[in-house]
C-alpha cells in the first residue's frame, strides 16, 4: 500500500520533471544554436567584407596570414568558380565552386551565406562569400569559412547543466513523493485498519480523521455506515438469539434438512427425545441418522405431494416412543436451495391416556354386562316357569345373588378408586408399624392360603421403624396384593412376604409368589383400571380388574410407590416402597 502509493507519486513527479527539462533544453539549445550561428555568420561576413577591400593579388599572397588572423579558412575563387587560393588546402585541386549556394547567393545579392557539411574537411561549416569587383565587373570571390565546433562545445556545456538539473529534479520529486505519500497515507492507512477491524466483526468505535478534504468526508461516511451496520447487526443478532433460544428451548424436537436432504441442525429437544447426540446426526441423511423406515416414507410422501405432511411414527424397539412428526418446507428467497423442517412431538403419554380411556369404557361396559346378562337370563328362566321347581329356584336365586354381589363389589371398587382420585377418601394417617397391618391382612387370607395348600413364608423384622399411614388403607393394599398372589399361584406354590428397611429412608414390603407370572409388555399397564394380563383367567377367578389400580393409587396417597417384577411361569414380586419421614409426630 505504502510502497505503491509512493511509487506512483515518485514516477509521476519524475516523468513530468524530466519531460519539462528535456523539452525546454531542446528548445533552448535550438535557439542558442541559431543565435550562435547567426553571430558567427555576421562576424565572418564582416571579416569577409573587410578582406574583400584588399586587392586580389594581395589577398592571394597573404592568404595564410589572413586566415590565421581571422581564425577562419580563406578561399579565393575566380569568376569561373575555380579555387585560386585556399589557406588550408594549399594548392590541391578542388572541383568547381560556382554552384555552391553561398557563391550563387553572393553573385545575386552581393553576399552569400551557407551552413553545410564540408566533405573536404569533414566538419559542419559556415561559409560566407563576397564577390571581388574591379569596377563593375566581378573578377572573383572571397570566401571565409569556419567550423561550427564552438557551438557544439557550447551545447555540450549546456547539456551538462541540464543533466545536473534533471538529477536535482529526481531528488526533489523523490522528496516530494515521499512527503505527499506519507501525508496522504496516514489517514488512508487508518481507514484501511478501521475497515479491517469492522470486517473481523468489531463494529464498535468510530474513525477520527481531522481533515476536511475528501478523505475526511470518506471517514465521515464510513463512520455513518459502520454505526448503521452495527445497529443492523445488533438487531439481527438479538433476533437470532431469540430464535435460537426458542429453537433449543422448545420441548418439541426440530430437525432441519438442507437441500441435499442431509441434517443441518437438530435442537436439544430432539436430542433428548431420541437420545442421539448432535454430532452423531449432523450431515447425515434421515435414514443414516435414525434408520426409521416409516420416517423415510413420510418424508418421501412429503416430497411427492409437496405439502406439509403430518404422521405418527414410532421410534425405538424396546422402549417405543410415539412421535407426531410434521414435515414442512422452509421457504427461502426464490432460487435459494429449499430446506425442510421436521417437527416432532412426543405423543407417547397422550396415546397411552387415549388407550386407557377407551379401554376403560370398554372394560366397564363389559364388567357390568357380564353379571347383568346372567342375572337377567336367570330371571327370565324363572319367569318362564322354572319358579315352580323349588330346587332350581333356589339354585338360580343363589347365582343371581352371586352376580349381584359381584356387581356390588365392582361398584364398591370403582367408588373407592374414584374417591381416591378425587381426594375424597378420608386419609387418616397415624404412626403405626407395618407388622401390625400385615398381620391383620394375613389373618384374613390365611383360610384361602390353606385351602389352596400354599406355603406362606413370612420374613418380617420385628424392629422395623414405624411409618405414617392410614391403617385401613394399608390393610386394603396388602389384602389386594395377597388376594392376587393367592389367585394366580397354582396349588402347592409359595407366597413370600418380606418387610425390611431399604436404602434412603425407605421401608420395603415385598409380596412374592410362584404363580403364572405376567408378560413383560403387560407390566407397565398393570396399574390401569380393568387392565388384566390374562383376561379370561382373571375374570374366572372373580376379580374386578381394579385391585392393582387401587393399590397404585393408595400408594400414591401414601407418597410411596409400587414396583412389579415378573417372569412368565416363574412368578411375580410386588415391592412396595414406603417413605420414612423423619419429622413424624
Amino acid at each position, binding site marked *: 500500500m505504502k510502497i505503491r502509493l509512493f511509487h506512483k507519486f515518485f514516477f509521476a513527479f519524475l516523468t513530468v520533471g524530466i519531460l519539462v527539462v528535456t523539452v525546454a533544453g531542446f528548445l533552448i539549445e535550438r535557439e542558442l544554436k541559431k543565435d550562435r550561428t547567426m553571430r558567427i555568420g555576421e562576424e565572418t561576413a564582416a571579416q569577409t567584407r573587410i578582406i574583400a577591400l584588399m586587392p586580389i593579388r594581395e589577398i592571394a599572397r597573404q592568404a595564410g596570414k589572413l586566415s590565421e588572423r581571422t581564425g577562419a579558412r580563406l578561399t579565393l575563387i575566380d569568376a569561373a568558380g575555380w579555387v585560386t587560393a585556399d589557406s588550408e588546402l594549399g594548392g590541391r585541386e578542388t572541383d568547381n565552386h560556382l554552384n555552391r549556394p553561398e557563391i550563387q547567393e553572393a553573385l545575386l545579392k552581393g553576399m552569400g551565406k551557407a551552413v553545410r557539411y564540408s566533405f573536404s574537411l569533414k566538419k559542419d561549416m559556415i561559409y560566407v562569400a563576397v564577390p571581388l569587383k574591379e569596377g563593375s565587373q566581378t573578377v572573383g570571390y572571397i570566401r571565409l569559412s569556419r567550423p561550427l565546433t564552438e557551438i557544439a562545445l557550447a551545447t555540450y556545456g549546456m547539456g551538462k547543466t541540464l543533466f545536473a538539473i534533471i538529477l536535482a529534479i529526481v531528488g526533489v520529486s523523490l522528496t516530494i513523493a515521499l512527503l505527499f505519500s506519507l501525508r496522504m497515507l496516514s489517514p488512508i492507512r487508518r481507514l484501511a485498519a478501521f475497515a479491517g477491524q469492522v470486517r473481523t466483526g468489531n463494529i464498535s468505535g468510530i474513525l477520527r480523521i481531522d481533515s476536511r478534504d475528501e478523505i475526511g468526508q470518506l471517514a465521515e461516511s464510513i463512520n455513518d455506515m459502520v454505526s448503521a451496520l452495527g445497529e443492523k447487526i445488533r438487531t439481527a443478532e438479538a433476533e437470532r438469539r431469540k430464535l435460537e433460544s426458542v429453537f433449543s428451548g422448545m420441548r418439541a424436537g426440530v430437525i432441519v434438512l438442507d437441500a441435499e436432504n442431509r441434517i443441518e441442525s437438530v435442537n436439544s429437544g430432539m436430542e433428548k427425545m431420541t437420545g442421539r447426540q448432535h454430532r452423531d446426526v449432523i450431515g447425515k441423511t434421515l435414514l443414516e441418522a435414525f*434408520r426409521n423406515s416409516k420416517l423415510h416414507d413420510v418424508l418421501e410422501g412429503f416430497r411427492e405431494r409437496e405439502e406439509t405432511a403430518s404422521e405418527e411414527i414410532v421410534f425405538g*424397539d424396546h422402549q417405543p416412543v410415539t412421535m407426531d412428526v410434521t414435515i414442512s418446507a422452509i421457504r427461502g428467497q426464490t432460487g435459494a436451495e429449499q430446506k425442510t423442517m421436521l417437527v416432532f412431538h412426543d405423543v407417547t403419554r397422550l396415546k397411552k391416556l387415549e388407550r386407557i380411556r377407551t379401554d376403560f369404557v370398554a372394560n366397564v361396559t363389559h364388567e357390568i354386562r357380564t353379571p347383568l346378562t346372567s342375572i337377567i337370563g336367570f330371571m327370565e328362566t324363572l319367569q318362564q316357569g322354572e319358579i315352580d321347581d323349588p330346587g332350581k329356584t333356589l339354585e338360580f336365586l343363589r347365582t343371581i345373588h352371586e352376580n349381584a354381589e359381584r356387581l356390588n363389589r365392582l361398584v364398591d371398587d370403582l367408588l373407592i378408586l374414584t374417591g381416591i382420585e378425587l381426594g375424597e377418601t378420608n386419609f387418616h394417617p397415624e404412626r403405626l408399624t407395618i407388622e401390625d397391618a400385615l398381620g391383620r391382612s394375613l389373618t384374613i387370607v390365611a383360610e384361602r392360603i390353606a385351602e389352596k395348600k400354599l406355603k406362606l413364608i413370612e420374613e418380617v423384622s420385628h424392629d422395623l421403624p414405624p411409618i405414617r399411614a392410614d391403617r385401613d388403607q394399608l390393610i386394603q393394599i396388602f389384602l389386594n396384593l395377597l388376594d392376587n398372589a393367592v389367585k394366580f399361584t397354582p396349588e402347592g406354590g409359595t407366597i413370600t412376604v418380606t418387610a425390611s428397611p431399604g436404602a434412603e429412608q425407605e421401608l420395603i414390603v415385598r409380596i412374592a409368589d410362584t404363580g403364572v407370572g405376567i408378560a413383560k409388555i403387560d407390566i407397565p399397564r398393570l396399574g390401569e383400571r380393568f387392565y388384566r394380563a390374562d383376561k379370561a383367567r382373571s375374570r374366572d377367578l372373580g376379580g374386578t380388574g381394579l385391585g392393582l389400580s387401587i393399590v397404585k393409587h393408595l400408594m400414591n396417597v401414601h407418597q410411596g410407590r409400587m414396583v412389579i417384577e415378573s417372569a*412368565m411361569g416363574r412368578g411375580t414380586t410386588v415391592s412396595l416402597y414406603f417413605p420414612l419421614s423423619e419429622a413424624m409426630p
Partner: protein
Amino acid sequence: MEEKRHINIQYDKELQDVKDSLIYLGALTEKAVVQGIDALLNRDTELARQVIANDKLIDRLDTELEEKCIRLLALRQPAARDLRFITTAIKINGHLERIGDMAANIAEKAIILNQEPFLKPYVDLPRMAEVAQGMIKESLDAFINEDVALAHKVRKDDEIIDHLNEQIFRELLTFMMEDPHTIHRSLIISQISKLLERVSDHAEGIADMVIYMVTGEIVRHKPTSAENG
C-alpha cells in the same frame, strides 16, 4: 462417501440413494427380527402374521436395490472406493434379504407354538435374540458410519450366539428325554434357535463386508479369534 465428492453430482446422488435404500431395507429387516421375536415371546399371533406379510416388501426392495446397483456398475463404471461400496451394497443386500426371510420363518414357528401350551419360560432364547438383534443393529451402524472397530465387535459377538445355541439345544434335549410330549415344541424351539444363529451369521457377513468396504481387506474366512464365520 461423505468426504470425497465427485464432479458429477448426479453420480453422488445415485450412490447416496443406494446407501439410503440399503439402510431402509436394513431398518425393515431389523424390525422384522424384533417383531418376530416379540411375537414368539409374547405369544402374539397377530404380530407374527404381520411379520410374514412384510417379508414380501423386503423381497421386493431387495430386487429393486440389486437392479439399482447393477445399473450403476454398468453406466458409471465405478472404480476403487465406489466399486467396493457397490459390491458391498450388493452383498449386504443379499444378507439383509436372508435375514428378512428368517424373521418370517421365526414368525411362522411362533404361530405354531402359540397354538400349543407354554412349554417353559424362555431364558436363553430371549438372550440369544437380544444378541442377534444387537448384531444386526451394530452391523448396520458400522456400515453407516464406516466403523471398522464396531464391525470387528459384531464378528466377535457371533461366538456368544454359537455358545447360546448349543446351550439351548442341550436344555431342550433334557426336556425331550423327560417328557416325550414336549418333543414337538422342543424341536420347533430348537429350529428357532438355529434360525437366530443363522441371522447372526448374516449379521457377521454384513460386518465382513463393511471391513472390506473400508479397508479393502477380505476377512470372511479369517478367524475372529477361535471361531470361523
